[in-house]
């Protein structure tokens, strides 16, 4: 096994990878940007090196710097985590050229699927349906109009070069197309440097379902079931669960066989996720393959007991696939809440800042993946995901009830988080019924009240605590001293839209 690996990431996923390395007896090297110097991934690693200032482009995205640290610290392999350089073919090539094992698919596989059309054509050749769409890069609006009429409205306008929701627009009628096309093209130009667009048939109330696969040498392959990721806010996943509550065993079989076809047709390597859209009619369409460990991988781990990060490392080392499909048992249901440092009562404004108190939940069926600790500062430079709180139960209902208990136990004081959103979701009839789609949250969220609920009892106690005679003396003393509590700035930002909607 590897003696030492570098983890080219930060936060909860870096800590999570270190945990598997400790289990396997592998030494770890962390890298950190200036604001991350006191992070948990730095002190949990055996070694840690500074790679630049807070801006990701100058640190966690700085390929030469990361490769240099890997070489000087004499690691044998590099784990990229998710986001940052995880699916960057140049980084994978940089590692390969420096004699380092990149823990993930080889650079040429990352590069080949960077062009999403090639990937879709491969899927079609393999007999896996894709969403009807324009196959070419469209530069002129007239061309778009012809293609749109062929496909039929509503359609989705998407950027040819670039991912996620950036430049994406739903167009319901022919009348709207010209304006939407222009806006999307200029947005794509700004975001990705290329203005080409393409069109896709827009499905009403689709579901986003993905299949976790692990591919060993010579195409040997296991699948760890599907994950239902339809609970999204503005195309960003909020809560994931497995198994998907809408699938019967026939549909599941069909879905999984499509995922395996894609894996084989693309000659995929290592752990990956095959993403599908499911229409209201129950048809699956292949979307893309995610070539990395994903944020929500933990729910598949919880129902199968398979450590996906361990499998990634073993395959990269050349140990081959450590398990057969027959050995994979699926037990119960698991569900994950992404806890973000965002203020849901102020339109999900970013909420970086100091963690005054962190009490994680615990008990039967609960798993927490995080790098939070008391007194740490959540920096403003990075993704707002600060913790994953997940539950496992013998049934979906048990997982839901456990998750509700866990969220009610959790204390994250000092910054605002999306815990109230998850608490609302877990009480929502549509969600509890299992019958939901990617629009559920965006349809409902504006009607939900996320200002933290305070009961009359709590108000009475707050009042009494403030005004208790013996407290008063302290109060006066305290007023004289400097406070670490800043009042909220008068001018509050309004989040416009996510920058990178990577669907991590």
């Amino acid at each position: 096994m590897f003696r030492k690996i570098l983890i080219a990431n930060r936060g909860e996923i870096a800590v999570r990878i270190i945990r598997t390395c400790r289990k396997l007896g592998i030494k770890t090297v962390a890298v950190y940007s200036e604001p991350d110097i006191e992070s948990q991934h730095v002190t949990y690693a055996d070694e840690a090196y500074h790679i630049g200032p807070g801006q990701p482009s100058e640190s966690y995205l700085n390929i030469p710097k990361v490769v240099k640290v890997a070489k000087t610290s004499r690691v044998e392999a590099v784990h990229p985590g998710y986001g940052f350089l995880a699916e960057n073919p140049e980084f994978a090539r940089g590692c390969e050229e420096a004699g380092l094992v990149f823990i993930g698919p080889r650079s040429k596989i990352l590069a080949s699927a960077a062009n999403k059309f090639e990937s879709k054509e491969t899927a079609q050749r393999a007999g896996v349906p894709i969403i009807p769409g324009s196959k070419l890069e469209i530069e002129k609006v007239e061309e778009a109009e012809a293609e749109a009429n062929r496909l039929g409205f509503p359609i989705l306008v998407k950027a040819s070069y670039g991912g996620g929701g950036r430049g994406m627009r739903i167009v319901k009628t022919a009348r709207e197309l010209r304006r939407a096309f222009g806006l999307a093209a200029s947005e794509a130009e700004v975001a990705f440097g290329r203005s080409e667009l393409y069109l896709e048939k827009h499905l009403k109330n689709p579901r986003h379902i993905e299949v976790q696969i692990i591919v060993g040498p010579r195409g040997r392959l296991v699948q760890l079931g599907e994950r239902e990721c339809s609970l999204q806010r503005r195309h960003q996943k909020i809560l994931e669960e497995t198994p998907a509550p809408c699938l019967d065993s026939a549909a599941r079989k069909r879905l999984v066989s499509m995922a395996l076809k894609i894996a084989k047709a693309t000659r995929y390597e290592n752990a990956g996720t095959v993403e599908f859209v499911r229409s209201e009619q129950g048809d699956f369409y292949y979307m893309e393959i995610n070539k990395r460990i994903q944020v929500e991988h933990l729910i598949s781990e919880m129902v199968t007991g398979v450590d996906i990060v361990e499998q990634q490392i073993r395959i990269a080392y050349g140990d081959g696939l450590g398990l057969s499909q027959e050995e994979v048992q699926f037990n119960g249901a698991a569900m994950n809440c992404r806890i973000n440092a965002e203020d849901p009562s102020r339109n999900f404004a970013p909420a970086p800042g100091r963690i005054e108190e962190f009490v994680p939940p615990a008990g039967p069926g609960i798993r927490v993946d995080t790098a939070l600790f008391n007194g740490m500062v959540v920096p403003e430079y990075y993704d707002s995901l600060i913790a994953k709180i997940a539950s496992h139960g013998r049934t979906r209902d048990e997982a839901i009830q456990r998750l509700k208990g866990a969220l009610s136990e959790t204390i994250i004081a000092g910054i605002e988080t999306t815990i109230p959103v998850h608490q609302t979701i877990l009480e929502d009839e549509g969600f509890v019924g299992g019958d939901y789609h990617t629009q559920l949250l965006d349809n409902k969220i504006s009607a939900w009240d996320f200002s933290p609920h305070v009961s009359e009892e709590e108000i009475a106690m707050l009042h009494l605590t403030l005004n208790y005679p013996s407290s008063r003396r302290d109060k006066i003393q305290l007023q004289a001293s400097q406070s670490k509590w800043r009042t909220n700035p008068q001018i509050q930002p309004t989040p416009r839209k996510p920058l990178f909607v990577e669907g991590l």
Partner: protein
Amino acid sequence: MSKDSNQIHRLTVSGKTWLVTELDRKNMVQRVEVDDEELSIRILKEPSVDQPNLLASIAGRVFIGKLEESGEGSGYVVRLNGRLFKISLEGGQQKAQNSGAIAAVLGPMVITAPMSGRIVSLKASPELLVHEGEPIAVLEAMKMENEIAAPKTGTVREVYVKPGALVKAGDRLCLII
């Protein structure tokens, strides 16, 4: 405690204001009215210098309260069963609204960055007329773009930052008169 009896307190927590009135206290039971609901609080342990926690129960539920630190102005922080609450006394919310209104009348106002981040775009330029609520800048933080809206109607007099600049919370962005 007696001096405050029957006085109405205004507590603002999470943007909502409650009216709290202390009623009578017998032995260790304090009655309190919150908005229109009457509650009996049984004091289990009074705070002291050594043990600053106030322990009390309402309908059997035990609460542990502690005054943590006072904030600026009329703000306080109280820890209740581990959770931190920021509290304004005497109708803090109203006051904030008032001060905004006053600023709109009084004139020059420096707009500062509400959080650290990068200026993605800047609509404010010298001599531009802006209306209250109109976006004047977009700040990127945590991979999200955040619009900064004009807090008042007026004319931009000075702009202190350029697009692409990194700013810290509290840095000046522009001056509106």
